[in-house]
């Protein structure tokens, strides 16, 4: 493949293509970023103009962010998001790693049945109301545990983890067994340390899923103290009335809405550049299986 960038005869067509290709992709990138940028700008503007298109704040203020992090009604949902994400990611990884580790034991009686039990849930489930009634029956209604448990058991992630474990050399496990290592010891001392990229990747998938969860909170939780930031954000965005917290500080509701969106994106935006490769690992890992 020619990489030479030049307008001399043999390369002209290729170079012109490269330029247009780059311009096209740049437009795509701008289209991806401009909505986020606009929200960002409006979140720090005291006045969100309704007559001018501004891509830069006119009067800069961080007031909206200060309100979100100081008013309990706004900060509490943020805190719920944080702790459910932390607990959920841990639980999700625990279930996926143990489940995947069992499923790679080829000699173990019953493994085929277990594997089938997992797979079947991917193609058939009880549905909305029956699941809801089970949650109520278990006494989990109106607790964050309803959300944590339903998202923690993710068969797709479990299968991804299994694909990763299957790439580990079997001889390692067997050698460890000869040295007198228990199954749990092998799991802790060999499987987990060797699976750090998969743990990072699948852990991030879980974290994003818990952080982004909205519907299960709407479904299972009514206590406002247990609702997460997504639910709060939705409520803020949809309201046509002036937001009281913003009004008190002399801010426009628009500024408040935009700031809430940015706060919602922020934790992820900070880690994203460092973790991008793990997300891609996760997807291509799934592709191998397919």
């Amino acid at each position: 493949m020619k990489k030479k960038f030049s307008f001399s005869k043999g390369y002209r067509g290729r170079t012109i293509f490269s330029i247009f290709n780059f311009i096209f992709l740049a437009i795509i990138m701008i289209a991806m970023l401009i909505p986020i940028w606009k929200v960002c700008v409006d979140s720090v503007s005291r006045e969100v103009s309704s007559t001018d298109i501004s891509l830069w704040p006119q009067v800069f203020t961080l007031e909206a962010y200060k309100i979100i992090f100081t008013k309990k009604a706004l900060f509490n949902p943020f805190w719920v998001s944080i702790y459910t994400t932390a607990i959920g990611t841990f639980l999700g990884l625990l279930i996926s790693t143990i489940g995947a580790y069992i499923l790679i034991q080829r000699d173990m009686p019953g493994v085929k049945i277990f594997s089938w039990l997992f797979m079947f849930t991917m193609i058939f489930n009880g549905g909305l109301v029956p699941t809801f009634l089970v949650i109520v029956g278990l006494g989990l209604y109106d607790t964050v545990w309803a959300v944590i448990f339903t998202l923690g058991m993710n068969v797709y992630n479990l299968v991804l983890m299994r694909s990763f474990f299957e790439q580990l050399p079997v001889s390692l496990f067997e050698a460890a067994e000869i040295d007198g290592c228990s199954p749990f010891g092998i799991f802790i001392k060999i499987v987990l340390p060797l699976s750090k990229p998969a743990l990072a990747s699948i852990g991030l998938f879980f974290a994003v899923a818990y952080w982004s969860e909205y519907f299960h909170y709407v479904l299972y939780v009514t206590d406002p103290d247990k609702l997460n930031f997504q639910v709060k954000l939705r409520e803020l965005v949809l309201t046509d009335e002036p937001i009281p917290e913003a009004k008190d500080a002399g801010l426009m509701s628009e500024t408040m809405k935009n700031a809430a969106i940015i706060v919602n994106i922020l934790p992820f935006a900070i880690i994203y550049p460092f973790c991008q490769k793990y997300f891609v690992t996760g997807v291509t890992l799934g592709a191998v299986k397919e």
Partner: protein
Amino acid sequence: MASTTKSVRPTEQLGRLQSKNKKRGIGGRIKRYANFYVMFIPVLVILFLFYYLPMYGIKYAFTEFTPFGEATWIGLDNFTKLFEAQRFWNAFNNTLFLSIINLVLSMVFSVGIALLMNEIGRLFIKKVVQTVIYLPHFLSWVVVAGIFTIILSQETGVVNLILEKMGFDRIDFLTNEGWWRSIFFFINRWKETGWGTIIFIAALSGISPDLYEAAEIDGAGRLKQTWYITIPSLMNTILVVFILNLAKIMNIFESVFVLYNASVYNVADVIQTYTYRVGMQGTFNYGYSTAVGLFKSVVALVLVGFSNIMSSKVTGKGIV
């Protein structure tokens, strides 16, 4: 780790261990794996409680059941009611329409952009493009809906501001039946196109450079190389991704749930949102909602079966 550095002995032991395992009967094997079963119990309990126990609740599909009374058996009445309900067919058709168009658009855009990204020579630029276009995938649907609700808002949205400056009327995009679907497809592409390219970029990097070299020697230009080598090599991946997503077309939910509203039910309501509304809002008709959910599950199951057959034909492997 250590075993690779040791001499032949561990391997011999390994062989002995394996043959010993083979000789063990089922009882011996269960005993050998006893610890594994103990480890597995919590996982199995969670699986059972949250996935298998609800399946028992499917029986409510055949009952008249609301939170205000006991369930009474009514046989197939819910299903006859369902097949006569205009709202149900509306939701069913919308599910198919929105999912399939969305799937086709996603394939076209993701493959197209993957091909263009593959032509970028400089690794750094490629990385920057990837980082940027994957980003919207990680925003939650609530955030995405929030961003676009603000941008498209009739009074304060920037899009309407531009329209007004250009001399058009202001449009309330998200409550307008004529606009809602286009907006929905656009937002879906905005969020997921970049992420969709990953699998195709991986497939593109797997194409042997020898093929291109040979084509070049034969005098094929870049365009011909793309047409005769790149696209045919991608065809398998395209088909597999298409088939896998075809199996999921009934699952469309959250994207609609956060973007739709009562004024666009005719064009936006899908099976899952319908199930939610009849079961969890208004009359809380648990029985009827379960019936709708069961119908959806059965159609989804048929689709998975169909995809599985297709996948076996294309790749020689099933999807489940």
